């Protein structure tokens, strides 16, 4: 977390989860390289790093794009463990993928054992409104139930793509600051208090 030498910008580790084919890689690639890949190619695992400006502060984001397929579930835990924030993606055109988010959520909570882990529920493919199977209400209800934010994105049109990553990073950052604060304020992010949220169990 705040292990790196002070000269290094803060590093936030984001993990993309969700069923196969919902657009995890598409979102990632859109965010990383501003490109939209039409052809589907199942991911095993991919990792990216990017330097970005988060509210005027230079930070690095590490994105781990995981496999949607169960075949790779074995290695998933290894990644989940080191993730600091999660984007849980489903496709609004596919109800199954929405149902699957429940499992992913549980899996993450099991590995991280932390109800308040930075987490966003993301309904992708919102450009395909005519093929929508999951209503906005349905999804945001679930998000509310989990106590997380729900955002709809389109990797194709780039709608809200940056938003989900930046929102998540803000959460991660807030989370870290909070931890640092409780750790006698040893953290380097001390000066950025404004985003701290109170977390009560």
């Amino acid at each position, binding site marked *: 977390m705040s292990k790196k030498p002070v000269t290094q910008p803060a590093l936030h580790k984001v993990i993309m989860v969700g069923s196969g084919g919902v657009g995890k890689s598409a979102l990632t690639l859109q965010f990383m390289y501003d490109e939209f890949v039409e052809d589907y190619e199942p991911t095993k*695992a991919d*990792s*990216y*790093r990017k330097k970005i400006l988060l509210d005027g502060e230079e930070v690095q984001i590490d994105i781990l794009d995981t496999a949607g397929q169960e075949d790779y579930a074995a290695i998933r835990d*290894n990644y989940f463990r080191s993730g600091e924030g999660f984007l849980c993606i489903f496709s609004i055109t596919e109800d199954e993928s929405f149902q699957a988010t429940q499992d992913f959520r549980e899996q993450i909570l099991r590995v991280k*054992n932390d109800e308040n882990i930075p987490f966003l529920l993301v309904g992708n493919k919102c450009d395909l409104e005519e093929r929508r199977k999951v209503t906005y209400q349905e999804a945001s209800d679930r998000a509310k139930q989990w106590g997380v934010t729900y955002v709809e994105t389109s990797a194709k049109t780039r709608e809200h793509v940056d938003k989900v990553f930046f929102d998540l990073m803000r959460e991660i950052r807030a989370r870290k600051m909070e*931890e640092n604060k409780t750790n006698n304020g040893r953290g380097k992010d001390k000066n950025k208090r404004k985003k701290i949220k109170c977390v009560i169990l």
Partner: protein
Amino acid sequence: MDFESPDVMKDFPGLYASDIHKTKSNDPEYSDDAEKVTKKDILIGKRKDKKDKKDKERGYAALEGESSAEESYEVSPSKSKKSKSFKFPTKSKEKREKSREKDKEFTEKKKEKDKRTEKKIEKDKEKCKVEKKEKKVKSEDWCDIAEVLPIFGVNLKLAIEHGRCHDGIDLPVPVRACIEYVEDHGLTFENVYKVSGPKSKVLHLKKLYNQREHVNLSDYDVPTVTSLLKMFLRDLPEPVFTADLLIRFEEAGAILNVAVREKHLKILVGNLPETNRLLLSWITVHLYNVTLNERLNKMSPQNIALCLSSTLQTSQRLLSSLLFHCPALFPNTVLEHYVYPLTSSSQLPDDPELMEQELLKQESLLAQIHSEMNVGFISKQREELLWEVQRIITQLKRKLKTANKDRELLFEKIDEQHVEETTENEGERSATPTISSEAEAPPSQSAECVEEPTTVEMEVTTEIAAPVSDTNLSDSSSCEKHSVKDAEPVEVTPSAPENKLLNNALAILQIKNTFLNNLKESFLKQIEQERAEITTLEAQLSQKDYIPFYGDTNSVSLDEIMDLLQKENQILQIKKINLVRQIMEQQEECIDLKTKIDACTKNVFLT
């Protein structure tokens, strides 16, 4: 919490630490089977193991009887800091301090930890949390992997698995590294393998390897490295020759008849399991290389056998015979240098083939990291490494993909162009349309030639024709297809700007193309000329042939015929040389042309 306790424990190692510690402490072995050793188990195991380890190391020291292991233990943190160029610089120091405190505060801490996890958000959380963090760092990356998946002291298969070389050569990393080091720096070292290094250093190196730390052997000297290799071999539970075959090896080694001995040894080597054979071949070839430098290092085969027979758990005689027969037994063993998988700081290769190779390495490394993590070797560093390797793989894949895409695009482009130009060139030589027929043309010509009556000149043509086809084939395969006969740079430029990415590659290929075409044409002309020459020469020859045939009588003596033929041959030789020279000249011209064209196109592209 509504989660099952094992999972909770997994993530909060301290949670039930004390209880489990009690129950588990009787359980000395943590196997890595599917039953899933939780992180917690490992952590607890570690605390214990740490003590064990000290004992163990002391045990080794006692065994070796030199400097104490305590020493090595103390030396290590600072040493490891120096030696590893990796990137966990500050930790070892922390670790050391902590390990000192640790034993004292051990029980105390545990209690606190229990408290903390149960009442998660209490005020003393801060304090505990700091402690937790420290504990994590300390326990997680300290010694577990060395205990659970050691490289030293386990059977060869496991050693290879645990210390894998990721380039497909199945030798344990330390063996590979030591051999490489001695090959590079120790072959001329006097009494190499006889002099042993300081025990503390050797043990330290062993520990680094067992802990998967990055080791830089060049920080050490030859005796230390040779001792490390010897230690690895000595620690193998089973001799390299395998328990089953050892006696037969010994018998074979004792055979007096050299040829029979070699034959028997060969068969036995063939009977060894793959991994053992590989290790044996590397070691023998390496030791053989050492003995080749006997003059400088004073190590004769006998000396080597004397020094290493006990290490290899064999007799001097067997080892000597192996060294004696080394070239015959392992003719194909090449001691390839091991290039470690790249780290994120290094530049990725550009050549697709190298990229593929590197990708394989990285994937092998990744698989190993995963499997190590699955048995509980989890630490911040390892996670960092996992992400890093994953990142390199992603980058490599992306790079490969773009490279392939570029190539495809380029081909499409060339195909288009090709179609255009072939239509232009319609009605020209039948050889023009595709490269395949072009490439085949020269060989077929030479084949035709072969059918013609054989003369000295004939050989010349084939000699010349062969290289022609070779060049065409190899060069054309390098740009894969197309042969655009009149491809001139001017033609390329208008279409090129369409795709900026391709500009450079296209330009280069185009130049090559033009160059090749020129070359080909010149060669074709050459061949035609030669064939004309051949026919005339043949005619001459056959005329001359008539002389002996018709004037079979004594009108022309044999001597005369001999003279004539010799002269003829001389002429032919000269002509041959001339032809070859002409070809060379033409080639040079072609190269000149190429450079000119190159320059031209560059200018065009610049403007």
